[in-house]
């Protein structure tokens, strides 16, 4: 979806502001909000899709974890974890669906260990090779996508093949993992932004195979 979240290349957002003392969380409730989503063990693309759907004016006004709070409610009702009625009343009405995996404290301790590395998938061959010229397709899907507007239709070069990974757009739409190759694609800064960009600079994006076409 062409939403406000896709903000790469905008110029009117002001200077980057640093906090004098950088806090991880700015209020106790932000800690709980952070933990509630991570404790659900739901795929990130599903959460990101709900954040994408926050109306643009609200997206820019509310804080980072307020976005999470806005997103987690439809996320949970869509997933069938909570009913809108339960959220409105705050009371448990329906039974618990046992298909949900409940994250344990013991599991959390393994999250930055090699055993928690992302799933790997069989490789049935890559459509593109390193060094090849490609074009990012001009896709404008109504649903979740990780292909930013600022590279659509632009030519780039396959910089690296990162192997096969599940496809976020499909996962967000409930269409399964649709695993495919992900490439680091280099776009020359001048091809994206014109002659004022530094001649040697480049922007590199991780792009799934079906975002790309050979040229």
């Amino acid at each position, binding site marked *: 979806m062409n939403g406000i979240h896709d903000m790469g290349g905008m110029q009117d957002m002001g200077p980057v502001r640093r906090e004098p003392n950088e806090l991880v969380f700015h209020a106790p409730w932000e800690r709980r909000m952070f933990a509630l989503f991570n404790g659900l063990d739901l795929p990130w693309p599903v959460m990101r899709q709900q954040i994408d759907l926050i109306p643009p004016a609200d997206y*820019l006004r509310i804080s980072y*974890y307020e976005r999470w709070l*806005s997103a987690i*409610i439809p996320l949970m009702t869509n997933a069938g974890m909570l009913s809108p009625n339960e959220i*409105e009343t705050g009371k448990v009405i329906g039974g618990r669906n046992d298909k949900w995996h409940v994250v344990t*404290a013991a599991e959390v301790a393994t999250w930055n260990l090699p055993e928690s*590395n992302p799933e790997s998938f069989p490789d049935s061959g890559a459509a593109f090779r390193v060094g090849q010229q490609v074009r990012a397709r001009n896709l404008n899907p109504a649903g979740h996508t990780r292909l930013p507007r600022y590279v659509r239709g632009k030519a780039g070069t396959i910089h690296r093949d990162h192997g096969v990974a599940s496809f976020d757009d499909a996962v967000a739409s409930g269409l399964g993992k649709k695993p495919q190759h992900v490439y680091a694609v280099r776009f020359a800064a001048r091809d994206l932004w014109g002659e004022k960009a*530094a001649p040697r600079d480049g922007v590199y994006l991780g792009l799934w195979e079906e975002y790309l076409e050979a040229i």
Partner: protein
Amino acid sequence: MTTRRDLLSTALTATGAALVSTSVPAEGHSHDHEHQAVPSDPALRVKALETLMVAKGLVDPTALDAIIEHYEHKVGPHIGARIVAHAWVDPEFKRRLLADGNAAIAELGYGGTNLVVVENSPSVHNLIVCTLCSCYPWDVLGLPPLWYKSAAYRSRSVIDPHGVLREFGLSLADEVEVRVWDSTADLRYLVLPERPAGTDGMSEVDLAALVTRDAMVGIATLSSPRERVHA
């Protein structure tokens, strides 16, 4: 005019967990950047949501505490710094790290993400951003600072990296090629900064202490220990 806050208060009277649309405009509520003082409304809503989720058996409260402890205290830039220092002293490890981040950091006992390490040199400077949301290598750097998640950083890093870097106090020579890495896919980038001059013979532990979070995101370079003393 009903404000969003009014709606929140009404909805909160029952339980606090009310489903509140975010589309209600808040007139006269101006913010020029993302960080804003958040009053107690979200706190009540989150508390009510947590109570409901626990009552329904969807989350384990001890796991929630463990998640906060894990990301606020256990993981952090010290992990990235250890990886960087090891790469500086062991060229073979560095080669493996640049070729396959996950396989290499597994040697140090770390994992959890698809890690891609990008190397700075006198002629190349790397900068990490996520224009679409806030993707960041949590497992090796901890959670990102507010500026990394800000609209200003997300929008401008790709179109004006030199300008953004100057705002962070880093002016690069014209001949330096800037590579901006936009975290669009499930790949998490870590910058391998240049080893500062004057660090020959330092232990790996002492080297790790020189490595900053900012340098591993690419908004800073590392100064030599001597310069640091006088900085």
